[in-house]
């Protein structure tokens, strides 16, 4: 245990990151290892290419978008805290203290809303806070593949937008997005067990 703790000290700013993300020491250490493994030339940050090297990510239809979400605001470098911050969205929700949280503190990264926001920004390419029909169509095109024709895709996109669109502006806002998923157990569906 002592060895581990001393190892964890090697993670720069470990305490701060832990406070922010809620990751456990072991998990943070593990992520740091992974971060270093992904960082090819030990440059201390990750570039897009580093992530694109991950084989399975290349075949993931949303792979590019997910990689993009690691690089907010047009950054080209991803440092460790940023890396962990993104992954913190997928930390399972602790069931013990739902109400104990200090209201002044910012919402934890793994809250339902933040999980949803992460998914939402994968759709919302132009960052206008709305999934337009076109954006929906693009996602559908990625996800559905070649079997379905363009018209079919379009009609699906129409229908999808219409279904969620409540104010009739032809686009899905974040609020509408959350509403369309309110019956779904997001806390469960957007969590990965190992990211405790």
């Amino acid at each position, binding site marked *: 245990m002592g060895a581990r703790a001393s190892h964890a000290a090697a993670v720069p700013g470990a305490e701060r990151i832990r406070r922010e993300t809620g990751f456990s020491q072991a998990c943070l250490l593990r992520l740091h290892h992974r971060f270093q493994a992904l960082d090819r030339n030990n440059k201390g940050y990750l570039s897009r290419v580093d992530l694109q090297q991950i084989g399975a990510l290349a075949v*993931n239809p949303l792979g590019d978008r997910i990689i993009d979400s690691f690089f907010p605001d047009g950054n080209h470098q991803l440092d460790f805290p940023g890396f962990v911050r993104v992954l913190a969205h997928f930390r399972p929700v602790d069931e013990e203290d739902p109400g104990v949280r200090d209201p002044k503190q910012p919402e934890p990264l793994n809250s339902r809303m933040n999980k949803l926001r992460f998914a939402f920004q994968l759709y919302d390419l132009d960052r206008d806070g709305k999934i337009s029909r076109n954006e929906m169509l693009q996602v559908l095109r990625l996800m559905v593949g070649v079997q379905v*024709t363009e018209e079919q895709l379009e009609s699906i996109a129409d229908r999808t937008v219409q279904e969620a669109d409540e104010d009739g502006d032809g686009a899905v806002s974040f609020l509408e997005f959350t509403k369309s998923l309110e019956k779904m157990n997001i806390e469960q569906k957007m969590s990965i067990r190992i990211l405790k």
Partner: protein
Amino acid sequence: MLRAALLLFVLPLAGVRAAEEPTPEPGAPGESPSGLALFRWQWHEVEAPYLVALWILVASLAKIVFHLSRKVTSLVPESCLLILLGLVLGGIVLAVAKKAEYQLEPGTFFLFLLPPIVLDSGYFMPSRLFFDNLGAILTYAVVGTLWNAFTTGAALWGLRQAGLVASRVQAGLLDFLLFGSLISAVDPVAVLAVFEEVHVNETLFIIVFGESLLNDAVTVVLYKVCNSFVEMGSTNVRTTDYLKGVASLFVVSLGGAAVGLVFAFLLALTTRFTKRVRIIEPLLVFLLAYAAYLTAEMASLSAILAVTMCGLGCKKYVEANISHKSRTAVKYTMKTLASCAETVIFMLLGISAVDSSKWAWDSGLVLGTLIFILFFRALGVVLQTWVLNQFRLVPLDKIDQVVMSYGGLRGAVAFALVILLDRTKVPAKDYFVATTIVVVFFTVIVQGLTIKPLVKWLKVKRSEHHKPTLNQELHEHTFDHILAAVEDVVGHHGYHYWRDRWEQFDKKYLSQLLMRRSAYRIRDQIWDVYYRLNIRDAISFVDQGGHVLSSTGLTLPSMPSRNSVAETSVTNLLRESGSGACLDLQVIDTVRSGRDREDAAMHHLLSGGLYKPRRRYKASCSRHFISEDAQERQDKEVFQQNMKRRLESFKSTKHNICFTKNKPRPHKAGRKKKDGVANAEAINGKPARDLGFQDTAAVILTVESEEEEESNSSETEKEDDEGIIFVARATSEVLQKGKVSGSLELCPSPRVIPPSPTCAEKELPWKSGHGDLAVYVSSETTKIVPVDMQMGWNQSISSLESLASPPCTQDPTLTHLPPRQLNVDEPQALLDLSSDPRPSFAFPPSLAKAGRSRSESSADIPQQQELQPLMGHKDHTHLSPGTANSHWCIHFNRGGRL
């Protein structure tokens, strides 16, 4: 009702007894020459099947009786009622026959009664949920069952040693372990019967139910191993035998699963090639699944596991391959068989219990077993859950554990296994039988009765049944991809990673291999949901009475209602579109007041809504092809028509979306519709009028899977290679107008064209209904609709003729001649996409084309068409003209756009 059932039941009994007595039969050797017997009683020849049929009948009648009272069935599970009924019937049999006649034979049970239930549960198992919880299910099934068997067996042996079980129960440790192994397994039949009525949340259900299915392998192995140990005698058992026992656990379970998967593969592969013989599709499903069961049974592998895996594995591909009707047939047959089997099992369980010659009572054993199975089940569940929760994302809470412990019902499997014991080898068999019966009855009746109140009292999370929405489906897929990606980034190959891998493998190889090309192309979950939603909307819409034009009708029931829709009443629609809808000059000439058009619209609406019974029925005498009956066709018509209309008006009114990019893929089915329209435009010189139809192309295209199958592959390929890019790109304004006009076209098809057109109608060309016709291209109807439409058309023609005003044209060059009068037949031709690459058979869609005389040759078209869609033999004959035609259309359309 009950009395009738009893009567039915006693009848064959009397028959049996009568047959047993040496009655002089007519036609006996002594008096054979006396002449031809008028009446012969041949009970023995039909006895076995007759009894089987009667049993099922009695069981079914009993079911009906139970369900007469909702109060009873809501309180008491059906399985309890059936067991009680079985007890009563058994008592009657005992009283009448003085001996127990019928009981649950293990052979019958394992070979005939169990497979349908297991197949049903495997086939309809929610696979995603199942695999999501596979870890927990396997733990409970393997570890839990082993734990239960050994602890129960050992504890009973301890009880025996302590003297609490009477010494006349001659059983050693091995006997008790054997008994423990058969009594420990949670029974799928009982669990299903009880849990289906309780509606706990899906996770809980799948864990208990999955456990009950998968523990079969463990039960079988334990039972067989213990049985052979008992038969060998405990002294002869060597260490290698124990090792063999452990090894056989793997052989039996993995072997059973492998057999199931092999048959699933075969089944999926077979159904890929059944497009010409749709009628045997359901049969194939049952045959191969049953073959899997029997094969596994033959190789003494776990047959339940085999069938479960077979059903689980094949479903995706089979459902994609077989026709919609076969799907329904499979579903219903499976459910019927399973329900019958379940009913009979419970009833026979009740009857078997009456036979007191088979069992011997020992209170200590019975009570001890009851307490132990409850206690150890609970203990096992708690311990395993504690371990599992260390790994589970969503831990199972205490309430879940209570339900899981309490839901461990024992059933007919245990009973059949205990009956199978050899009395010479297991001297305590009678005691075991009695104990098993008590345990089964206790769990099914007492626990079955109380589990519902318990679930209510504990406030167990119930299953929420919400309709799937496109958003949920889409986002769920997104989440899956996200999680898989994040696992990649984190570098952890977890569940999501492997599922993602599997899905890619499936997409790349398995689906390619096992699904029809057409089905594969169409098959997509998001697309499926979309399709189902559309269908459901349409159905519920029709159910509501199909008020196509009322404002409420424009709200999709699956969507949240919104106020903006209220504006879209028909009146508004009509008024709005007053000027812009028809660009055709002639049409504009004849544009009447909105009022007139409304009247006409109402007329058509009524005639469209008031379906009349067909006067002429085509007798279907083919054994190989099922033709739809008129009612079904009507339903389908109404449904499709309304659905299309609604979507159209919904789109146009709500969003004013224009399909500016109407770029069909190089796919002939979709194309042909447009070709047809383009033809119409070309000839009539009224391009704008048909744009409404083009808008709807997206809607119509939803349904081309079947058509495609009808075309042979070479043609498909050729079409693909053609590389036609048919762009019906119109300016958005025109399209919009077209759309409105599309929604105005209230008369959807020749069949619903009123036999008596209003006066206005003759001058209202916009009613020609091009757009709506295409609705008939549905996945299922393509084959048959053309025939129907011909018939329907002929009917309306004949009624029109009776008015002595020949209103329209029937093109005489029906199926074969390329140079046709193109103006009349396009949209209908679209219906025949599958077999006919060009709009080739004809009947007039439009009363606007009045004044031509009908050709008599249309009469034989139905016959031709009837065979043709199923044979698909015309594909080749029309290939070249069709392609030529489509090229031509393109040119036209581009011109038209400019």
